[in-house]
């Protein structure tokens, strides 16, 4: 009898893992296909308000204070990412114009089914709502060919609403967001974006699902004034 109970427990545990993994890697087709003209509202139902994880809160707070503008901390990241700023492949950059980039990256080239990469990028452009432009200049036959284009391109006609944020999905992006799906939104005179690389283990639909979840659970972190910091 004990053995049977143990077996059942293992099966239940495997089932639970399958559910968790399925949720993490599961297919999700929201907005993948159609371009209706109306604004789509994403379900915000949840068990409680999202919270910036305690371990990362300090890093996001420092960033906000450094750029003197609010930043958005993800309370959820796609598996297996961790939101630590000091992770092996993770990092942040801040440009002189106070715009920032925070990236979290997982990469494993040695898996049986081929390399796997999970890469998300968070950006903010304080005091600037214009889409950034990327330098795609190339050298062809000895000649430098200057070519500048929007860093975020091919917007979907439907905007998605996540609480107060009305975001546009861009499907062709440049720079650190190349190969990524990207949501960008304007808020209080600033532009923000969240993007994720479309690459195994996640399909296009799963990346979109991940992005929606990240967008739903972003936490706004206000800068501390100099006296507080």
């Amino acid at each position, binding site marked *: 009898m004990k053995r049977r109970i143990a077996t059942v427990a293992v099966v239940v545990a495997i089932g639970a893992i399958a559910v968790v993994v399925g949720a993490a890697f599961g297919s999700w087709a929201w907005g*993948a*296909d*159609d*371009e209706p003209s109306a604004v789509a509202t994403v379900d915000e139902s949840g068990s409680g308000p999202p919270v910036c994880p305690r371990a990362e809160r300090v890093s996001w707070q420092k960033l906000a204070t450094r750029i003197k503008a609010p930043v958005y901390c993800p309370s959820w990241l796609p598996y297996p990412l961790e939101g630590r700023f000091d992770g092996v492949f993770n990092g942040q950059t801040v440009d002189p114009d106070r715009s920032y980039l925070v990236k979290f990256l997982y990469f494993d080239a040695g898996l049986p089914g081929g390399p796997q990469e999970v890469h998300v990028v968070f950006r903010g452009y304080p005091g600037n709502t214009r889409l950034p432009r990327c330098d795609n200049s*190339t*050298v*062809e*036959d000895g*000649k430098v*060919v200057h*070519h500048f*284009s*929007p860093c975020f*391109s*091919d917007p979907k006609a439907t905007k998605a609403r996540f609480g107060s944020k009305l975001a546009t999905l861009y*499907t*062709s*992006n440049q720079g650190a967001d*190349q*190969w*990524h799906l990207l949501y960008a939104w304007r808020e209080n005179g600033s532009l923000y974006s969240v993007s994720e690389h*479309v690459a195994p283990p996640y*399909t*296009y*639909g799963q990346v979109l699902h991940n992005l929606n979840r990240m967008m739903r659970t972003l936490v706004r972190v206000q800068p501390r004034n100099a006296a507080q910091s």
Partner: protein
Amino acid sequence: MGGAAASALAAAGIYELADRMATAPPRVATGARPPEQHLLDGIRVVTDNDVEVLVPPLHHQVVTAKLRVDESPAALDDARQSLEEALARLEQRFEATPAGLGVTVAWGLPYFHRYVAGQAAAHLPIDRRASETRGREVRVLEDSIRFPTDPPSTRLESNDVAVLFRSDALDHIAAGAKAVFDDLDGLFDVTSIRKGFVGGGFDGGPGLPKQMAKAAGIDGADLIPHGSELFLGFTSTQKAGLGPSRIANIETLGYADVGANAYFAQGTHMHLSHLFEDLAAWYLIFDFQDRVDTTFRPRLDVPQYTRTVPQGPDDVQSAAEVVRDYARYRQIGHSGSIQPTSRLERDTVGRDGTLYPRGTAVPQRADFNTLDNPFFWTADVGRDEYVDTPAAGLHFVVFNPTSDDFRRNRLAMDGVMPNGSRLRFGTGSTGRGFNSILRTTHRQNFLVPPRVHRSFPLSEIQGR
């Protein structure tokens, strides 16, 4: 024919879905079958973005084979009679429109060399234009070459015969393939079966390419625009972009000397190739303007997400314009780079008496998307690097008057201009049309005889 090939001919595989995903458009037959095998009657014309578009058959299949026939005249006579009877029965059963079945039988150089070498030497038309350019006699049918952007792995095939089946109904194609390759057991060793689809979205639906790619789980499938005729998102069968009526016949434009008895008059040349398309890169890296630039011409201004971009005679690029684009942007467009060789430079009266105005397209394309990897079935899995997981690609089928005419167009796509000068690009450059997201796996040229000589051409003539 082997059991495995017979099973593959009968199987629809993932393409069975295509029959459920698209409704066959209305087709109207207008008359008797033309003497040309490659012309299909009843092609519907729709207007998209104020551009006339030809609606191709939804489903396509190409079967390639080697012959099992003995080289003796008696064996060839029997084979010719058997094949002709089978084809005639198909013509009685199906109308000559996409609602029925289009069958085009094309023959490769190995057939002409092995079975009818003497007759071919006498009757295979000489390509006057190519002969003059190259300073030696060139026939209308030559072996294909690897083009500058082809990888070294591109396989140059040597099939005896290829048969193209086209229809809006998969079961018509299956019936045709069975009649030719299964019922005529003993004539052919099938080497490959290639299947695919095109269109299906002109009446408002999502289109077969998007639906099929999504069903197959192809990376980038979700980003194929709604209603696209092909995976890459742009309409490719606009009327002005395809050669009209008999322009691709061997004899029409006078490129070739068809000889005193004009045996191959009303025939044409067919190039068959397969290439993979990297849809994820196409849609995630190239934005809409990039896709327009590389598909048509650099900096072409069209409204966002236009799927049918006008390519009429007034939109055609000259060689000088292509060179100017290269000088300025180090970039050429796919269509733009080909147009100096694929469109008529001046008003031309064809041998059929038709006035073809300057800017008229010559090639008649019959290409179709596929999920084959690289073929639906192959007799040689290792040689063809067959994999049984779906992959986005294109079976490229095009009719030109001669092998050389196709070669000129394809070289232009790689930046080799009509005068032979080369526009130079770095390895992997995105400046050379959309070649950077394509990878060609197989190529072969074929001759398409007129309908009257479609079965074992020249074999009825003595004198090998």
